[in-house]
């Protein structure tokens, strides 16, 4: 396919869309599907059929709107009305009132700020593109960036654009994407690989699931541009097996792209070839680590190995390999299409663009959000998130998953970027953001994460395998009111040791939840140890133990 043909598909699709007076998008994300949005769609379709409006009104599948608690959600275009909690029996009323003012009952003014305060770059087509139709994506300028890169830019110019945009890895560490691309680009080898890391193992985070489900073509386009830039001809998307819908939609998108000549040999009529395959994970958190992921793609146990050599020099099958996260690839096409200057206009000095967070826990508007870097935690939690339910007070926000930290009230006004979060003792992570109120016990939370790291440790290196188990035992003692101050000292010592000596990020990060809760909530630890009392009332310290103490 060449640029003219792509343009023609876009025009045809836009014409087709314009013939409808109304277009209704029913969210088909995992969250809304759980609330039976498929039944809502069916009854809307039946209603359109009954009223013989088929030529004027289109009922389409759309992507996630972010606010999963308000599902099933339906967007009415061109008005842009967003209905929440739509039930199948509402279909007649929705279709009836298409030309009138929207139904008040199905709208919720309290969640307006949730939608207004966000800046959508990666999720900018939210809910208005059918993830299972390549034509929808092409009509929204999809794949134009790939053809632009292939026909108007050299690989070096593509890398230059990405470098100039300041895009950093969205998987957590924030390594500059441009630097990684140029390292792989410079490596000499007959075959190179591009891998998309969609092994979102961080519990409490679902950004990548949503992006893979809603924008499979955007990821494919980003990967193809990356492959062109670094000179790769093969690629893998590594997806968790726990995300069946993402696997299905990515598979469908790959086949559609192949059929349209946007993947495979001679893409866009040029000499560029790129073959893409899906590899399913099988439930191992450690596989999010790049060398473990590579081992898993090769069909082995997902065990990390020491770096260097970095995957950029020796990755899959020993070949130079570029690994980026789902969200990183999802940013690429727009940077190429709109230029790096546009991208650098969003965000802070060192962290450019936007970040998607999964805002969950004790918060009113829990869901998926995309915000510009540089927004404060307070804006996220109180403006977008709508504050803490039941008038309880905010205690801490946790970012970075099992290797991240908790930040207390005094950090609410720090800006969200890679450096500030690190300074606060946490880190950006892949984007999980869990809010805790006064009823959450910080020692219990630390224990939860340690239990997670202990069971997910692959067992290859001793500090992680043995250290996490020892730290878990100590935390368990504390939460049962059986620990002494010596145990606490031992715990702190172990934290430093495991952090410094573990092989990969899993072990190095495992002590961070403990260290950060100790830093800000030491009094809670002491309450458990000295007073044999859990201030939040979570830990079950029995009266018998209290009397013996």
């Amino acid at each position, binding site marked *: 396919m060449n640029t003219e043909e792509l343009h023609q598909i876009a025009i045809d699709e836009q014409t087709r869309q314009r013939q409808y007076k109304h277009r209704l998008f029913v969210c088909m994300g995992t969250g809304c599907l759980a609330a039976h949005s498929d039944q809502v769609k069916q009854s809307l379709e039946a209603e359109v059929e009954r009223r013989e409006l088929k030529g004027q009104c289109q009922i389409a599948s759309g992507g996630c709107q972010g606010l999963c608690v308000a599902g099933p959600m339906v967007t009415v275009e061109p008005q842009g009305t967003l209905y929440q909690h739509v039930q199948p029996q509402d279909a007649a009323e929705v279709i009836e009132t298409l030309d009138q003012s929207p139904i008040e009952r199905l709208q919720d003014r309290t969640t307006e700020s949730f939608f207004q305060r966000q800046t959508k770059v990666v999720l900018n087509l939210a809910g208005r593109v059918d993830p299972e139709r390549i034509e929808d994506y092409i009509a929204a300028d999809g794949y134009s960036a790939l053809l632009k890169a292939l026909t108007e830019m050299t690989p070096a110019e593509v890398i230059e654009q990405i470098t100039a945009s300041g895009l950093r890895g969205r998987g957590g560490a924030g390594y500059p994407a441009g630097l990684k691309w140029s390292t792989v680009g410079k490596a000499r080898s007959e075959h190179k690989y591009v891998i998309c890391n969609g092994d979102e193992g961080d519990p409490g985070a679902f950004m990548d699931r949503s992006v893979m489900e809603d924008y499979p073509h955007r990821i494919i386009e980003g990967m193809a541009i990356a492959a062109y830039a670094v000179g790769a001809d093969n690629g893998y998307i590594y997806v968790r*097996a726990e995300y069946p819908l993402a696997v299905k939609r990515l598979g469908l998108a790959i086949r559609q792209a192949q059929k349209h000549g946007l993947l495979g040999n001679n893409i866009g009529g040029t000499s560029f070839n790129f073959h893409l395959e899906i590899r399913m994970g099988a*439930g191992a958190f450690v596989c999010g680590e790049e060398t473990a992921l590579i081992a898993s793609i090769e069909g082995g146990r997902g065990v990390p190995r020491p770096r260097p050599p970095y995957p950029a020099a020796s990755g899959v099958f020993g070949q130079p390999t570029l690994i980026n996260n789902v969200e990183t690839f999802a940013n690429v096409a727009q940077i190429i299409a709109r230029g790096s200057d546009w991208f650098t206009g969003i965000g802070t000095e060192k962290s450019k663009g936007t970040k998607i967070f999964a805002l*969950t826990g004790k918060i009113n508007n829990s869901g998926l959000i995309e915000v510009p870097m540089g927004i404060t935690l307070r804006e996220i939690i109180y403006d977008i998130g709508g504050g803490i339910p039941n008038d309880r007070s905010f205690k801490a926000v946790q970012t970075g998953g099992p290797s991240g930290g908790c930040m207390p009230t005094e950090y609410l006004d720090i800006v969200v970027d890679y450096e500030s979060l690190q300074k606060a003792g946490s880190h950006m992570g892949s984007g999980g953001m869990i809010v805790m109120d006064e009823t959450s016990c910080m020692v219990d939370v630390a224990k939860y994460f340690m239990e997670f790291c202990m069971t997910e440790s692959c067992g290859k290196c001793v500090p992680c395998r043995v250290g996490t188990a020892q730290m878990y035992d100590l935390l368990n003692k504390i939460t049962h009111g059986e620990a002494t101050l010596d145990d606490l000292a031992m715990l702190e010592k172990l934290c430093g040791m495991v952090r410094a000596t573990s092989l990969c990020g899993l072990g190095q990060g495992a002590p961070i939840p403990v260290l950060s809760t100790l830093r800000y909530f030491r009094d809670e630890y002491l309450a458990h140890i000295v007073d044999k009392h859990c201030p939040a009332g979570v830990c079950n310290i029995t009266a018998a133990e209290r009397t013996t103490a």
Partner: protein
Amino acid sequence: MRHHGFSSEALIETLHTIQSTFGYLDLEALRFVAGNLRLPLSRVYGVATFYNFFTMKPQGEHVCVVCLGTACYIKGSPDVLEAIERFSHLTPGETTPDKKVSLVIARCLGTCGLAPVATFDGELAGKIEPMQATGKIEEWLNFEH
């Protein structure tokens, strides 16, 4: 296996196919895979037991998965799990003696906006209450063919 050209890198994909067809992996299946992909059985067994997603035990007729991801944990999924455990006398990973119900825990199902969540035979239920979960299990256990 043919689809992947009988290469050793197809191991995980092959195991996925077997598990989705038969529900679990048994030693016979692993021997067969090892023979066809020309891999030592130890390697196949090692991979099958390394990943949480693969199970070597047959599952019950109905499967209940309780999510213990961070968001679900904070929002009370331990209470849901405890209620199910108490009601069904199962611990995670076990199946009732009549092979009707299996209880499984998941690390994160990725629908944290609806926490706490559980799936019942693959159908996702959000904002679940302990009573609701035990009610569903009771329904399964009492259902006669």
